[in-house]
């Protein structure tokens, strides 16, 4: 910003390369529009490469930002393809708009941004368009996976994962295996989404003699495999150890061979698998939970 060298580059760029830059941008939008918004948000080097300038010398974001005229033109082009980048216009309309753009393509590019989009005209097409791949990216939590039926596992969900959990998985409950207080923003999200919280504070099998109490695990299992709570997400901090132990015990209820249970445990705990956790899974006394589950006819757990 303060460096005059930067200014210099920008000026030179504006003088000689605006046209080329716009051509490239159009070209990319046409070929690869799905990726552009992501690209614009990503690293400068990557963006520059995409523009075929691999010098490493240009800060394209800043150039665009600092030149009002250029910024406007770029934004205009982006708006043509990404109506959802403009506040107040829904995604589906964006899809429709996109199709219109596809049809009219170049002439549309020359038109005014303020042109009113006729929603009625395209309503009929919406069904067909909705079949297309979604534009919106979803972010599952780290170490996320199905376990069985409607039981899921993951690491600690963060705000960016909320929409995934609510809209895609349609969670009914979350089971957390850490003793610490649950974060306020997660609680707020759960209240909004009508998700029930079950907390079973476990300290993990870190040291010899510091074990997860079997009783606690039994009550946790009782909640986890109860179909009334499904879909349920089981998580701890990283989704490796405590979650791995609980899932391992679910696998025992499914009669999996211990070797394959350990294999799965290690896959999710990698690179931090703990022998004590595996030992715990092996030694967990499943009699009580089996009795409860059989009484309530939860077994076999449905795939």
């Amino acid at each position, binding site marked *: 910003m303060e460096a005059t060298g930067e200014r210099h580059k920008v000026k030179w760029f504006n003088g000689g390369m605006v046209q080329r830059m716009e051509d490239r941008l159009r070209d990319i939008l046409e070929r690869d529009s799905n990726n552009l918004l992501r690209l614009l948000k990503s690293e400068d080097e990557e963006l520059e490469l995409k523009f075929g300038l691999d010098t490493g010398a240009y800060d394209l974001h800043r150039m665009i930002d600092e030149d009002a005229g250029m910024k406007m033109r770029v934004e205009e082009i982006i708006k043509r393809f990404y109506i959802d980048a403009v506040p107040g216009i829904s995604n589906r309309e964006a899809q429709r708009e996109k199709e219109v753009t596809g049809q009219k393509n170049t002439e549309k590019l020359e038109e005014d941004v303020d042109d009113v989009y006729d929603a009625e005209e395209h309503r009929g097409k919406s069904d067909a368009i*909705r*079949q*297309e*791949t*979604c*534009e*919106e*990216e*979803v*972010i*599952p939590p*780290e*170490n*996320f*996976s*199905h*376990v*069985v*039926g*409607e039981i899921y596992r993951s690491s600690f969900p963060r705000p960016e994962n909320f929409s995934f959990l609510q*809209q*895609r998985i*349609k969670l009914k409950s979350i089971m957390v295996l850490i003793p610490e207080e649950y974060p306020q923003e997660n609680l707020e999200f759960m209240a909004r989404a009508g998700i029930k919280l079950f907390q079973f504070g476990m300290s993990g099998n870190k040291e010899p003699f510091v074990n997860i109490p079997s009783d606690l695990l039994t009550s946790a299992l009782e909640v986890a495999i109860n179909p009334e709570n499904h879909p349920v997400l089981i998580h701890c901090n990283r989704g490796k150890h405590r979650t791995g132990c609980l899932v391992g015990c679910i696998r025992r209820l*499914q*009669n*999996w*061979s*211990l*070797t*394959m249970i350990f*294999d*799965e445990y290690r*896959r*999710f705990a*990698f690179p931090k698998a703990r022998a004590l956790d595996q030992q715990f899974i092996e030694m967990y006394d499943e009699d009580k939970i089996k009795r409860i589950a059989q009484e309530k006819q939860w077994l*076999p757990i449905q*795939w």
Partner: protein
Amino acid sequence: MEPDYEEDDDHVYINEETELGRENVVISHAPRARIVPPLNFCPVERYLYRSGQPSTVNFPFLLDLKLKTIIWLANEEPQDALLEFCDAHAIQLQFATINPDGGEDDNPWDGLTEHSIISALRTIVNVESYPLLVCCGMGRHRTGTVIGCLRRIMGWNLASVSEEYRRFTGSRGGRILVELLIEAFDTQLVEIDRAKAPQWLLTAV
């Protein structure tokens, strides 16, 4: 429920212990003790599973899943045992050939072509083929490629797709080429018929 078996000595379901006696014993249900899922087995979505090549010890487990279709991602045929298992239980075995011209000359290092990925995904987005298992030799790279492309269709962000892929690749880690293939995969190439799409896909597209 009891399928038709021939009195065939090299039948795959022979119980090793009773083979010396008279009768071949057919394993048609999971033993009470422990059941063994295939290598790298994991549920992907409801009624959609992934794994390495299932062998005879895994068959009781596979029966539990009530599979309708298995997608086999390789040029070479899977073990005879698996072919016969699929026959016996009316499981559709779909070959998503890696390189149609390569014949039996299959190199396990070859990645999948776009064509084979799309052919596998067409089956995956059709609920009529469910419950469904996607597998390859080890259940790592080829299966990972197809599942990765499916996640892209579902709109997962690439970091999560990559994390999932690498979870199954074992100690040697993931292959950059596989991840490039997943990233570059054009999700528009797989047409989704909403009337036939599985429930979890409907909310994703």
